[in-house]
């Protein structure tokens, strides 16, 4: 009997949780409290200011609506003649001033704490790209890109025919998560490869611009394990809405294990550059890498966007000299939005992309570009 009660109780709890969860998700009205000491402090300050505004609003609008109700001509009101009072003017200058000081002091204290990036345990360099994030763990050397996940990307296309509600975490999921340990002071160094971006995770209450030529710093210290999502918050062009941030906060042990896995995978990737690849393998890999690195501008069908991003299908560049083609991918094109992908992609990736671009969409050159050719041209 007791068992049944317990089971049904748990079930009921679970059902309530799901419902309240979805209700909250759909009609969330307020800031998240977040999962860091700073985010809770920010939330508290937000609520304090909100209630101060509500209190002022009640007084001011109360007086106004009382006046509107009582002091109307249709109620037989006759206008008074007073039109100035030094006492009133001075008091409604001084009182708000005092209230503002009371608000500014805790804000200044919190700000000083938020801007102190010293004594961190771990440093992650975050680089914004149009339109993906690059993460580099400065201490261990792990480095990878994080782009919108394929399910969201496919569903987000215009007239995709896919119900976006059927996609888990639509527009808020990535292929590679930023994994961070809990309970450590993590310092972020932010910069950008092209235009301005801003890195923001609401649960940590931190946001800062990624600016080319600058290195900005900020920090967080996550209390709870979990997955936290955010988005780029500074307009960065066409796909600004499509570069989410996903942080997975894990225990220190799990984090160390993850770093080991990443380092091993990076070594395997480096070794694969020395082998001879087949056309089919390069085309398959090329299509995948093209999808995450090139398609945002040159489009999945290689047609580009007229006047903004050039077409690759049938273009003299993709059909002409291989070396020139590789050079543009590695070094970019000055004065245009074409980035230098040499720093972002491995030899294998670039070989695959160039092979793909020279053989897809009716380009059919039959050229096969090996990773060794990329290595030679770097």
């Amino acid at each position, binding site marked *: 009997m007791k068992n049944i009660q317990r089971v049904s109780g748990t079930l009921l709890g679970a059902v309530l949780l799901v419902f309240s969860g979805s209700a909250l998700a759909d009609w969330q009205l307020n800031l998240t409290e977040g999962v860091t000491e700073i985010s809770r402090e920010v939330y508290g300050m937000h609520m304090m200011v909100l209630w101060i505004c509500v209190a002022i609003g009640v007084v001011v609008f109360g007086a106004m609506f009382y006046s509107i109700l009582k*002091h109307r001509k249709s109620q037989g009101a006759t206008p008074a003649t007073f039109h100035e009072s030094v006492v009133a003017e001075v008091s409604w200058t001084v009182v708000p001033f005092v209230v503002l000081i009371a608000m500014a002091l805790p804000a200044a204290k919190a700000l000083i704490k938020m801007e102190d990036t010293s004594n961190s345990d771990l440093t992650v360099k975050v680089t914004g790209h149009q339109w993906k994030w690059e993460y580099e763990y400065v201490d261990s050397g792990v480095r990878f890109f994080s782009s919108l996940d394929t399910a969201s990307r496919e569903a987000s296309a215009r007239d995709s025919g896919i119900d*976006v509600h059927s996609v888990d975490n639509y527009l808020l999921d990535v292929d590679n998560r930023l994994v961070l340990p809990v309970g450590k002071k993590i310092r972020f160094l932010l910069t950008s490869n092209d235009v301005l971006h801003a890195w923001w995770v609401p649960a940590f209450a931190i*946001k800062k611009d990624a*600016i080319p030529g600058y290195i900005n710093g900020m920090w967080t210290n996550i209390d709870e394990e979990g997955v936290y999502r955010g988005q780029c918050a500074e307009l960065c062009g066409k796909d600004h809405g499509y570069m989410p941030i996903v942080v997975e906060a894990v225990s220190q042990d799990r984090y160390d294990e993850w770093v080991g896995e990443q380092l091993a995978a990076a070594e395997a990737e480096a070794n694969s550059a020395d082998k001879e690849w087949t056309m089919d393998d390069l085309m398959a890999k090329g299509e995948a890498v093209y999808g995450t690195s090139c398609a945002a501008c040159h489009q999945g069908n290689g047609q580009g966007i007229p006047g903004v991003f050039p077409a690759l299908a049938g273009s003299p560049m993709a059909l002409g000299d291989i070396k020139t083609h590789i050079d543009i991918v590695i070094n970019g094109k000055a004065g245009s939005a074409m980035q230098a992908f040499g720093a972002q992609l491995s030899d294998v990736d670039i070989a695959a992309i160039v092979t793909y671009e020279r053989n897809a969409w009716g380009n059919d050159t039959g050229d096969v570009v090996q990773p060794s050719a990329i290595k030679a041209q770097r």
Partner: protein
Amino acid sequence: MNAAATEADHHHGPAPGLMRWVTTTNHKDIGTLYLWFSLIMFFIGGLMALIIRSELFQPGLQIVDPHFFNQMTTMHALIMIFGVVMPAFVGLANWMLPIMIGAPDMALPRMNNWSFWILPFGFGIMLSTLFMDGGGPSAGWTLYPPLSLQTGDAFPYLIFSIHMLGVSSIMGAINIVATIMNLRAPGMTFMKMPLFVWTWFITAYLLIAVMPVLAGAVTMLLTDKFFGTSFFNAAGGGDPVMFQHIFWFFGHPEVYILILPSFGLVSEIIPTFSRKRLFGYSSMVYATASIAFLSFIVWAHHMFTVGMPLTGELFFMFTTMLIAVPTGVKVFNWISTMWRGAMTFETPMLFALGFVVMFTIGGFSGLMLAMTPIDFQYHDTYFVVAHFHYVLVPGAIFGIVAGVYYWLPKWTGNMYNETLGKVHFWTSTVFVNILFFPMHFVGLAGMPRRIPDYAVQFADFNAIATVGAFGFGFSQILLLVLVIKCIRGGEKATDQVWEGAQGLEWTLSSPPPYHSFSVQPVIK
């Protein structure tokens, strides 16, 4: 020239035909041109807003591509700021400032004609960019580099059109300053000027101070793009953040350019319909001047996330919070004006009251945004979108609409349809809140601004906002109908028009003669 000829000159009416509007140097004609231009641009900019809201009605992309979506957000802002609010204010100033200070016309009538006629060409160029290779500007109205440098063929045309709008604004502002300084009737001392004149006087100085700064900023963008300079290019020794500093040194005073004349309008209207003198006239003047001064030292609060030094962030947080003081003084004075008055609620008064309430709501969210540590959560989210739309739509635009209703009987000689006016007010007020209030919620819940598509948890409030947008947009057709009906006829307006109205404009006939105050009135 003999005396009789001079007399005849003074009494000639408008030139016949369309050329009247092309060659006019009459402040009333030019005011009318500005106001019609503003109304047309209001519908064009509004159409863009409806495209934006339609795309955001539900998650997923249905109507436009992200690149075109960004063009819409950019052009919507540029048009609403430079093509609607600013020309409407200049139109009201042209019509009313000379009359309110007892002057026969603006001080520089030919320049007045020119400053208007630049506008249609400037906006013609700006709108034509939408049809160019690469589309119109899509980097946001703030034109932050390096992104704005990725604009296609539109770029030089955009910069040139901004230069033209700037030239127009500067000439309009110089004209207003010259008129107020030189053409006040005898006895119209500075501290007797109506508040609308005062707020425009201060606004004109802001315009003269900051429009050249904008011109400089966009010219540097132009040379970076085409002449190989590196003002904002870090790789060439420049600094992308410097653009933001220069832009917002223009941009923040610009924000007050967009609101101060509305403060003036409301300060005219509330006393009239409360049948009681404006409370704290001199403190209103000083508060306006304080706001104008502070507007020059708060600009970097738009940039709290660029990574300024801590001391910089603290300075701009404190100065920004300080703006709440003079702004509060204004609100308290308006309410004290109403207090123990004998109020009636004709349409201009309704819009003025709507202004006070909803502008104050925008002020509250502004105070929240001023606080740097919590601004990190609000920055570049829909909370900001909600904030500035509250101060600009039920703020600046409600002020303008209130002013139009207030003076429409004076301009046309006919009363407008009061029932239609009240319906316009109530539909506008209800829908503007359905449109913008939910944006606070999605912003706090984490929705960034300037995105064409969003995560599904933001769907409900976005759908509601879109419903509000269409309701608000279609409500404005009522204004157009009402204005046209009022021009065509209606109950004749008296010279006084409103029972409690005070001021020189009400001493003239309705409509006023084509040339008014050829003989200066004397103010006691």
